[in-house]
């Protein structure tokens, strides 16, 4: 019985922190600047599509999805890195933490709030892309499937940003999160590029281990398959979701553990 009441209390706390984070982030200038860039990219994709021969729809689709994905990730990084650190810096975190609640809830609430912001942002951009594709008679429902996996990628990136934001300054967090983003999108090339360069068997094994261990964000990128309506492998969706949640959990648990013991004075 006691447990039930505790859970309800936790959920309420997380919800109220999330709501605050949502309101706070949605007013952020960076959010609007990046969203404006993304919309510009979508418009740019349409202009570029007039320069092509025969690939108009695919250019709007490819550049549109790439633009949405890239600017959503940038939003996630540049809004996400300040989520914890700025609160500590401005000392506004004391108002929240003075309440009888575990510190971890603050991290989790912040995370869910940020994900809600990114979800709104992503949905708005996908709707714009949908309208553009509909105008050029290239609409496919698979756009939303690609959008779902962009959201999965954002879930991982935001967790990384939150993790670094809880332990480092915004600049350092931005650098580290960007580094993880780059690693996430290039780790899939390890076996093709890195491993052949290594001569030592041990080094090769380490490289392969890193290949499997580091977040493989390129795996969550299904945009390239959507263009040709290539069927998604059976069982991919569920495994990719579990993979994403596992990574998010690892990062959030690590962030909570560090934040619990962090001296905020």
């Amino acid at each position: 019985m006691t447990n039930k009441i505790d859970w309800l209390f936790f959920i309420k706390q997380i919800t109220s922190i999330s709501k605050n984070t949502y309101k706070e982030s949605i007013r952020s200038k960076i959010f609007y600047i990046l969203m404006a860039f993304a919309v510009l990219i979508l418009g740019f994709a349409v202009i570029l599509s007039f320069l092509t021969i025969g690939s108009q729809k695919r250019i709007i689709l490819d550049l549109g999805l790439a633009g949405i994905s890239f600017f959503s990730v940038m939003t996630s990084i540049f809004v996400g890195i300040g989520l914890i650190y700025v609160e500590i810096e401005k000392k506004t975190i004391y108002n929240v933490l003075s309440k009888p609640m575990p510190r971890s809830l603050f991290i989790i609430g912040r995370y869910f709030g940020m994900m809600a912001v990114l979800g709104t942002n992503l949905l708005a951009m996908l709707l714009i892309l949908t309208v553009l594709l509909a105008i050029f008679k290239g609409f496919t429902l698979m756009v939303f499937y690609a959008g779902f996996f962009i959201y999965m990628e954002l879930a991982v990136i935001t967790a990384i940003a939150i993790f670094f934001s809880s332990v480092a300054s915004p600049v350092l967090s931005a650098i580290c999160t960007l580094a993880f983003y780059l690693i996430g999108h290039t780790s899939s090339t390890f076996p093709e590029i890195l491993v052949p360069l290594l001569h030592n068997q041990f080094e090769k094994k380490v490289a392969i281990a890193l290949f499997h261990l580091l977040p493989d964000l390129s795996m969550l990128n299904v945009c390239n398959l959507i263009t040709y309506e290539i069927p998604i492998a059976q069982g991919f969706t569920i495994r990719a979701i579990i993979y994403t949640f596992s990574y998010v959990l690892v990062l959030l648990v690590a962030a909570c553990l560090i934040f619990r013991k962090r001296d905020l004075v």
Partner: protein
Amino acid sequence: MRKKIVDYIGIVLILALLSNVFFLHSEIRDLTKNYPDEYRSYYIPSSLQMKFFSLGYHHAFSDLLYLWFLQFYDWYNKSVRYSYMVHTFEVMTDLDPKHQEAYTIAALFAFIPLKYDLVYKFLDKGIEKNPENFVLPYDAGCYAFFSEKNYERAVKYFEIAYKRNPDKSLLKNLYAKALSRKGDLDAALDYFEDIYARYKDDTTDEGNYYRSAAMRHIWVTKNAIAERDVKEAVSKYRQKYGKNPLNLRILVNEGFLSKIPKDPLGEDYNYDSNTGEIKCVSKFDPKAITGRW
């Protein structure tokens, strides 16, 4: 007073630097204006590097490269533009091996100066990377058949296209035509007869088109086969007896022909013993054929 002097010096310095930049820029532009366009600063990394740096957005990068490719190679007057074309094409299609337009447009740009080796190189890669695609071998076959008149090559490509999409009569028709031009008349006749059988009772526009085309092709091919057979038989007879036979019956009796050939309407050919050649006397008449085939 001192502050004002510093301000003035600062403003003068800025203006001097700006004028310097202006003149330097003009001079550098003059110095480099005679460079060939191909040597202007552009660099496209290798496919592997591009895959790495495109951060998973391979198709978007391939699209951008394709757009650049269209703008750059659409400019025909460049002297050595083809030296870099292959690399650009390779990167573009390595990033997105299914980018059909990239193959067809690259082949088209290579075709304009009739660089057939490049045309087939570009399309061969597309054919290999897209085992289901019939447009690319069809495209290659058309270059070989209609422009290069390399019928052996045309047969190779049309055969691939036809096997990838056997229901498309256009491909079957072109394959048969290429076989015919190559000299493989018997195989060509089989395919033309298939097309005719398929559209025999089809009164749609497509049916009428393919039926009448097949009729003419069958007519021409049957005559060509008969002419070829007779020519071969006469040649053998001449080798043996030193003269042409007086009629076709002699060739049959001597075993050089299995039977006396008949024209597509079942009539006898007109044999000329002086030249040793036959001539079809019947006129091509689709209405007359319709009842007989």
